[in-house]
């Protein structure tokens, strides 16, 4: 079983392939190439307080590390939601 190491919320730059498939991102000054994607899910926060919809995607990088990336649907801003060990 994997243990969760970090829930960060740090903004990242993501390069896309096509409309909604990330292929590369930079986190903490290091670039990761995405080799596989897992589940995708979407969540609403407290929309009545202005929270927008967030799209999540689980990715496996060329380093073998697993990340849950998140994108705000309204702004297209990405951040690392969780970095798995």
């Amino acid at each position, binding site marked *: 079983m994997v243990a969760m190491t970090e829930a960060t919320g740090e903004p990242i730059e993501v390069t896309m392939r096509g409309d909604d498939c990330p292929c590369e991102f930079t986190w903490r000054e290091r670039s990761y190439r995405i080799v596989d994607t897992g589940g*995708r899910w*979407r*969540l*609403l926060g407290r929309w*009545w307080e202005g929270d927008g*919809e967030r799209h999540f995607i689980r990715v496996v990088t060329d380093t073998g590390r697993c990340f849950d990336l998140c994108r705000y649907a309204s702004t297209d801003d990405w951040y690392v939601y969780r970095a798995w060990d």
Partner: protein
Amino acid sequence: MTAFTHLHTHSAFSLHDGASAVEDLPRAARDAGMDAVALTDHNSLAGAVRFYQAAVEIGVRPIIGVEFTIEPVLPGCLEDAERPPHLLLLAEDNEGYSNLCRLVTAARLGEARRESAFSEEYERVDRDNPLLTQQHLREHRGHLIALSGCRKRGEIPALLDRRLFPEAEQVAEHYRDLFGGEHLFIELHNHLLPRPHGRSRYRLAQLAARLGLPCVATNNLHYIEKSRYRLQDVMVCMGARQTVDEPNPERRPNAEFYLKTSYQMAELFADQPEAIANAAQIAARCEWELDLETFHFPAFDMTELKQRGESKTLEHRASESAATMERPHERPPAALEHPVGRPRAPVRCAHHCPRAAPRTANSQRATIFLRRLCEEGARRLYGHLSAEVRERLDHELAIIEEKGLVDYFLIVWDIVRFARERGIRCSGRGSAGDSLVSYVLGITHADPIAHDLLFERFLNPERRNMPDIDVDFDSRRRDEVTKYIYDRYGAERVAAVCTVNTFRARSAIREIGRALGFPEEEIGRLASVFPHIRAGDISEAVEKYPEVRDARLDLEDKRLLIELAGEIAGLPRHLSVHVGGLLIGARPLTEMVPLELANKGIVIAQFDKDDVEALGLVKMDILGLRIHSAIEDAADHIEAREGRRPDLDALPLDDEPSYELLRGTHTVGLFQLESPGQRNLLGRVQPTDFEDIIANISLFRPGPVQADMITPYIMRRHGLQEVTYPHPALEPILSDTFGVVIYQEQVLQIAHAIAGFSPGEADVMRRMMTKDITPEDLDELQERFILRAGERDVGTETAQEIFGMIRGFAAYGFNKAHAACFGRISYQTAWLKAHYPAEFMAGILSSQPMGFYPPRTVAEDARRCGCGILPPCVNRSEDRCLVEYERNSVGDIRLGLWMVRGLQERSVERILGERECGGPFMSLEDFCARTSTPRPAVENLVLARAFAFTGMSVRELLWRLGALPADVVADRRGRRRSPSLAYDDADELVSTLPALDSMTEVGRVATDLQILGVSTTRNAFSFWRERLREMGVTPSVKLWEREDGERVRVAGIIVSRARPPTRSGRTAIFISLEDELGLIDVAVFEDVYQSCGRALYTSPVICVEGRLTRMGALDLSVTAENVIGLGSWDDFGCAPIGDKTLGSAARRNEHAARQTPARGGEGRQIAYL
């Protein structure tokens, strides 16, 4: 790509769980490239007919289903007993649809569904939590396809989610055995949820594979556009009475429950393509067609009539005649349906004959029976059967028979007969009055021959229309009539039509505001500022209405609230009982109509009147009319005084004092003739006979007012304008109305006289002119009219002129029969008020709320008629008002106990019962001890001076009441503590009474208004007298001394406010002000409304500056140039409640005025106190 069909969809009829209008669903599906779509609301088919119509119209195939809340297969495994599982059922065919209707009814009514009306069984039904039992499902499971339901509430997925695999399989096997493997699908969702929920579809697919069951993908949609997720989320909170900050498992974590395209769905189920393919396959299997072509008439059961031994002679004769044609069955089937084909294409003037009803022995007997009844009735009313009457009866009966309406008439006759036998006052209204058959059967009371009424206006052989016979009953006894109908036809065949209540501005603000967590007071303040408008008009209202604009609302933090209120506008909020519409089925209604329970235990169809009409179900309107109660009361009082009851239905129509009353416009309380506008019109018309009453009722309608038919009518009537006819053939038709076309019947007669149209053709033409007609169709119609007129030697120009004339009036003309039916009641009320004012006004006061004015105004008017108003008395008052003659030969009105605020019907019954058994009450203590009336109600009785007989002042009595212990006076709920001291001791307890001031006069009036709604001493407005004199205000009676056009200042309490539609669309508000001595009519137009609107809607007492308009001897009104609010009771330092009541009564009154349909009804209802 495989086509996909949405099979699990919720509309707003899944109350609190669907955020889109059902009508929008088919179009959205089509726009997404689909050729079929299903509707599956929670435990409801209420949207079915609208959905079907919308789908068929745009060529999308509708599929109908229901998501049921169902008894769990494994109750022991249910996580939360409050949340039973869901199961989705789709109708495979029409029989499947019928089963859905039966199942919805069973889920909604349970075992109570077989009970007759007003049964106690209904009290046990949980209206808010319908539940389908497994037993009911088993009984009606045929022709249905079952889907396992949503992830959370479907029993199978919910068990799987909790990893109870064997149990989930057991449930799946249960349903597989019940429906068969071909008819059960495991439903898969992919709503892009995070793990572990995102994985549940794989576990479901595994289970399905193990059991050999097919899977199907659905999106469980709760809104069409994604953007509606906010509203849907708020609606769930509203339903749970929670705020958005509170957690609720029913709320959805994201916005994926919208109508996705086939492409999106295929992508979401890329790894389960068979589930997508199965959705299309199921859709292809479902063939649902609503029959919108056949009329379904109720069938009159003659057998029962015979068994009851009623109308024996008539029935005997009828069966004799029938026997010669065909030997009837020993016991003909109780229910027979007469389907009559309805043509698809709109029928024009061409003759159309609907498919004849199958002639059965029963229907032949019914036809003969109806004829006999008509002949008997005609002999009774006309003395003998003249050739004219016989001919007309033959003509009408032939059409009635051809249209298959014999049973319908017999049913109405039977209901009216029942009412009459029980002494329940009733009268038919509407175009049914055009029929001689209705008249001789006693359904309507205006003679169609004498009043020149045309049968074809009611029932046109050339149209596929269905008649609407509306009957008004004494509203206090309407329930007896409906109970009779339920008992007579059986619970399975009778249901009330529903009304779909939708969100309006106030309800939307209140409910959404609460869910968004705004404080209650803030919401209340915001909601109360808005007039009764649609929720979608809120933003506009902030600009448009001065009363909103000038309230200076702080809307900065309420943007979301107002946006959501706009979205919810027009969506259904709940179903309620339609005022009168009853369905009587020839077969059990549940074959095509789902039923549920509304308030007060009334079984309603989930279909409203439009749905019902589309389905061809013939309904009848059994309405309650309060004026009938008032008339009955008045007749009771007269009988008590004179020992004989006036026969009001047989009054000669030439009673001079009655017309004098009308001409003097002293018509407060009169049916249909009391509104300020109508009083104004009466003054101008100066009626002298019954035809004038009919004309008055017909003229005071939005149409004629907008088209200004009134002025030429009045000018010509008084000889100020020449009466001309474009063609001599029009003279006999229009001479009664001085050449002005007022009635729809006249349009028909003109088309007949000039162009030789048959009455049926003429009615089709009239209807075409009434609707939005294209210029081409109008040209064609005109051409035909001129051509046909030419054949009768009417010149083209004249024909053109006449065509233009009826074209202008056709849209506005009023149904004379309706006016004549109502006019009879108006005349009866005029007669009563002219001859028995105290008895009549007592009846009106007892029947509140009704009519145009609050009880306060009615009481003031009674005082003007010479009647005193006496406070209620526990030893003299009855439930209703009485008339006493000891001090006054005209009669004083002793207010009834019903009028005492807070005194419940139960308490009134107990007081009257106790008085009858144990004699008069000796004292306050005696009253409390004997009746257990709750303390707050006793307090109100004291305040209303119902204990004046004790000789003690109100304050003294209140002191005593306060000192009485809880074993003498009952608490709020009417419970008394067990006695701890003897009753005599109580007197000692209250002996330590201090000296108390008596009440001030202002206090007296304010208290009266607060507790009783009327003043028993003096006019409330008299307290303003001094101030008004200083302001130079002219009292109402002195206005008669002023000249037309003179500037005046008037003041009064607003008693009614109406804002009718105007031709220009600009605002016109008509206000009745009441000052100390009478009523003043005030008109406020757009400019003044814009500058002074707020005073009009916030201040109960106003002063108006303006110009006097006088037309004719008795017409007088003030056109406002300025309106000043004059404050309230606070200024006298007392009774703020009295003030509030005045203000809110006026506001509610306006609301009622807006709600009142133009065709009339019971007039404007005022809820007061």
